């Protein structure tokens, strides 16, 4: 903390503090209530009728454990997120390294092209992908294949942004030292640059997973009906119907899985830091995962 702030002559900002904590309450209490209602004993998602596990496990055919259609949505979301993560991360990391080092006109153009998806509203991307898949790339069926291509497209740029930040802070010195000591370009890349990039790669995995899980628009535009419904698509189509608290259970489960991914990423990051003798605290590990937003 800046020492000047400690002898700050201004009075303590009680109003600001209250406002901020109210914001936190407003942000989280609705979600916590929605989670709570997944344990509702009755059929309602808005009137509390006592605690039960009915919609998680007990109800035959209609609970999260026993409803096949909920399984399908959950499986679609998770499989899509994992595949997207496995494809978008290597593509994005390679693109980031390439763009940071490659001096050519093509690289300049590619650098612009890479940034545009970050500011393109998803509906523009979803609509154009749907039209191209149904008119030109007709070999790609709607459903998981098209959804996968779409998810990789919108998440790759985030990988580039995250990796580039790390590349800038690494600089070129280590790599050049390796080259001076006789490593080939590929050896320097594999043995020096990639290990140094590990935190960015890890952060990318987690961010891409979360973005894919969170996505509604692309999944919805490119789905082919109930079989390729993801959880957000399911929530969207069921939310205004009289569907049971099993919907809340489904949504909660999805949120829990992206929080688990976040936790795994943070554990991985702190293991990496400990090995390297980096003593930064836990908070900065968390902010690492949000840097792409700042």
């Amino acid at each position, binding site marked *: 903390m800046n020492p000047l702030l400690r002898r700050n002559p201004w009075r303590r900002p009680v109003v*600001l503090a209250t406002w*901020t904590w109210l914001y936190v309450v407003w942000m989280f209490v609705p979600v916590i209530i929605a989670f709570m209602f997944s344990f509702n004993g009755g059929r309602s998602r808005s009137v509390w009728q006592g605690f039960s596990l009915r919609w998680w496990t007990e109800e035959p055919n209609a609970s999260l454990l026993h409803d096949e259609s909920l399984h399908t949505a959950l499986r679609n979301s998770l499989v899509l997120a994992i595949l997207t993560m496995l494809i978008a991360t290597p593509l994005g990391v390679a693109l980031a390294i390439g763009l940071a080092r490659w001096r050519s006109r093509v690289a300049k153009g590619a650098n612009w092209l890479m940034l545009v998806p970050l500011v393109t509203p998803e509906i523009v991307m979803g609509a154009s992908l749907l*039209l191209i898949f149904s008119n030109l790339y007709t070999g790609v069926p709607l459903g998981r294949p098209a959804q996968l291509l779409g998810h990789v497209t919108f998440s*790759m740029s985030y990988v580039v942004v995250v990796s580039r930040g790390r590349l800038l802070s690494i600089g070129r010195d280590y790599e050049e030292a390796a080259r001076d000591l006789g490593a080939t370009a590929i050896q320097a890349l594999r043995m020096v640059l990639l290990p140094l990039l590990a935190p960015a790669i890890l952060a990318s995995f987690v961010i891409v997973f979360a973005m894919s899980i*969170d996505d509604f628009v692309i999944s919805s535009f490119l789905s082919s009906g109930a079989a390729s419904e993801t*959880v957000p698509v399911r929530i969207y189509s069921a939310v*205004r119907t009289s569907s049971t608290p099993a919907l809340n259970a489904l949504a909660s489960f999805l949120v829990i899985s992206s929080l688990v991914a976040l936790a795994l990423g943070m554990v991985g990051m702190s293991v990496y830091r400990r090995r390297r003798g980096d003593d930064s605290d836990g908070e900065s590990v968390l902010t690492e995962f949000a840097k792409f*937003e700042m």
Partner: protein
Amino acid sequence: MRRNSDGQWLWGLLAGPGTTWLLLLFALPFYGLACMAFGEIDPIFRNAVPAWNPLDWQFENFGDVMHEILFGSQRRVFVRTILYVASAVVLSFLVGYPVAYYLARHAGRWRGLLLALMILPFWVNYLMRMLAWVNLLQVDGWATRAFSAFGLQYNWLDGKAITVVLGLVYGYVPFLVLPLYASLERLDVRLLEAARDLGARPGHAFRMVTMPLSRPGMMAAGVIIALPMFGDYYTNDMLSRSPRTEMIGNQVDFYINGTSQPQKGAVLVLVLSAMLVVFMSYYLVSTMRMQRELQA
């Protein structure tokens, strides 16, 4: 200098797949959108056929939709979208700026925890957050009943503009707080001290120093939430699902997903993109500038 040219092939090779991917699945589809908007109607099947060659482009469909946007039924939708997004962005600033300011300046020992709490909504599914409000705002929902205890009887989910705007604020304000926080945190406190030393009152110092210095951050943060709001249709569908609150996104969804007139939807997407291109380029240029400064 051996090394400058050496290895260039490797960097090209690394950038190749990603660039190709973006060309084939981002740039080309966008071009395809134009080909659909300027395409023609198959005389037998009555379905829209994209015209891949710009020389074959027909402007009849485009003209029809433009006419609807400027003088006809779409006009109301466009005006409404702009009004909703503008109100939601302003409200987001009113809600989010004080939070970001407190976090950057005064949070003290709470800063770590608060920062974590600001990041957490990113990890909660957007539709889950909307689902939560749908449950609360139903006729027998807790929020509805709490409001009616204060004498405010209101059917929130029945096509109400206020619900949609507040839903947008709730959905996107976390995306505003973080970049605002980042820009306020970078601000040099000594400048404020100087303003104070020179006799500025706190409010005055805020207006003369903090506000102007955080303006680039505010612009970027505003743009980053306005862009997705302009294309949003699901918040609207979940919280209202009424023609009275329809936005451009709902029309696009309707024409592209719901009907056999994707060419109309394609024009709407093109017009929307044209409207947003100013914001998008502002953001891109400022990002590029920041990148160059970082590299220098």
